[in-house]
């Protein structure tokens, strides 16, 4: 087989549309997921048990079930229970946001816990209350520690958005598969590689932005802003 350049240029506008859809879906999921993750992560780090326990269960459950199953649940299961119709993008946004939120919560928790307990003692000695300690002492340090791991979750969410194609949503992967259907014999490899390359570039750009933010936030002389490797599933 030969490299079908002409075909790829024919498909390029379609893939561009698909990539835009993927980025929109990812962006929404990151927005909702980060908000959810911050709330759940702070609740998880709380010393109040009725905040900590539900957060623990939320994080433990949604990190232990494949995102594909959660997506099926959001698209086929939930609507059936309430006798409503849910469009594909809504189910995909919901499932991705919740999954992203559970992972983000772990990032927030480990970032908050990374702040040295001596800092808390010092804040207390200075007469800062709990809220002020959090705002002025914990959060500025936790933010810096959490950036690399948060970027990992961002990249994971981008990649997991590809699963929306399984419920028939025409984002990048779905578009690639549809294009493949037109000419399965010769076009499959080229199109699928192009799809993979677009994901790679997007993920790489996210990492690049993350490194930029990390550099900008760095305080000269403040060491210890070590990246903690996060597990990024699938």
């Amino acid at each position, binding site marked *: 087989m030969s490299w079908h350049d002409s075909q790829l240029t024919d498909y390029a506008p379609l893939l561009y549309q698909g990539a835009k859809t993927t980025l929109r879906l990812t962006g929404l999921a990151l927005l909702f997921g980060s908000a959810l993750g911050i709330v759940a992560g702070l609740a998880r780090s709380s010393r109040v048990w009725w905040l900590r326990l539900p957060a623990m269960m939320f994080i433990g459950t949604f990190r232990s*079930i494949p995102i594909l199953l959660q997506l099926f649940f959001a698209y086929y299961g939930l609507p059936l229970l309430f006798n409503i119709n849910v469009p594909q993008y809504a189910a995909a946004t919901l499932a991705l946001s919740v999954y992203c939120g559970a992972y983000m919560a772990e990032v927030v928790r480990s970032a908050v816990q990374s702040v040295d307990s001596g800092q808390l003692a010092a804040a207390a000695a200075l007469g800062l209350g709990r809220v002020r300690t959090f705002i002025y002492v914990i959060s500025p340090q936790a933010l810096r520690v959490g950036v690399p791991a948060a970027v990992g979750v961002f990249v994971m969410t981008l990649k997991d958005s590809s699963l929306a194609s399984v419920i028939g949503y025409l984002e990048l992967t779905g578009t690639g598969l549809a294009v493949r259907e037109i000419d399965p014999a010769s076009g499959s490899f080229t199109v699928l590689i192009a799809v993979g390359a677009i994901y790679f570039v997007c993920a790489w750009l996210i990492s690049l932005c993350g490194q930029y933010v990390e550099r900008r936030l760095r305080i000269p002389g403040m060491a210890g802003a070590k990246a903690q490797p996060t597990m990024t599933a699938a």
Partner: protein
Amino acid sequence: MSKLDFGALSPYIGSMLNALKITLFISVLAVLLSLPIGLTLAFFRTSRYAVLRIPAAIYVEVLRNVPLLVIIYILYYGLPSYGVVLGALTSGVAALTLNGSAYLTEVFRGGLTAIPKGQYEAARSLGLPHRHVLGSVVIPQLFRITFPALGNQVVGLILGSALVSVIGINELTHVSYVIGSKTFRYFEVFVVAGVMYLIAVQLVNRIWGIVGRRVRKGMVGA
């Protein structure tokens, strides 16, 4: 709100448990295949020779930044246009292995940098040949250091194995979907499947934690 009926699933529980076995089988296979590849590539990645280091870096970066789903499609739908036809199971396990080994390479690389340089120097000055330094000094410590992270990767592969359902392998997610479309009890079947995954993953976490405490016992700096 329609009525829930978990009882409607009772004839299918057996086939779901069988599917869970296939899920675990695929995951274990992918873990076992990823371990040696990841270990080898971690040594390449930290090698002083660019000819080993650069290809390993490309392998890791590409596979960590492209969705597993796309890798599965490339192997299953894409490769046949080059005359390479892989079965569904082979493609699925191969894709999971490619993905898993890339993440394991990073885990092992992190572990290698955590082993103090003095360990190499001590082993060399005791007269151990290079291969024994690796086998008796470096690799045992590497496994102890990376043990918790390895558990995360095992869980990652169990969760990732759900994706091979898209090419029709009868693992838990695919079988649940089929049962859902047959009985129209999507809600119930996905809840049951979710609980099965949850139990499997939590069991792996617990066992890994217990074994991990033993493995790391007496470790310097643990």
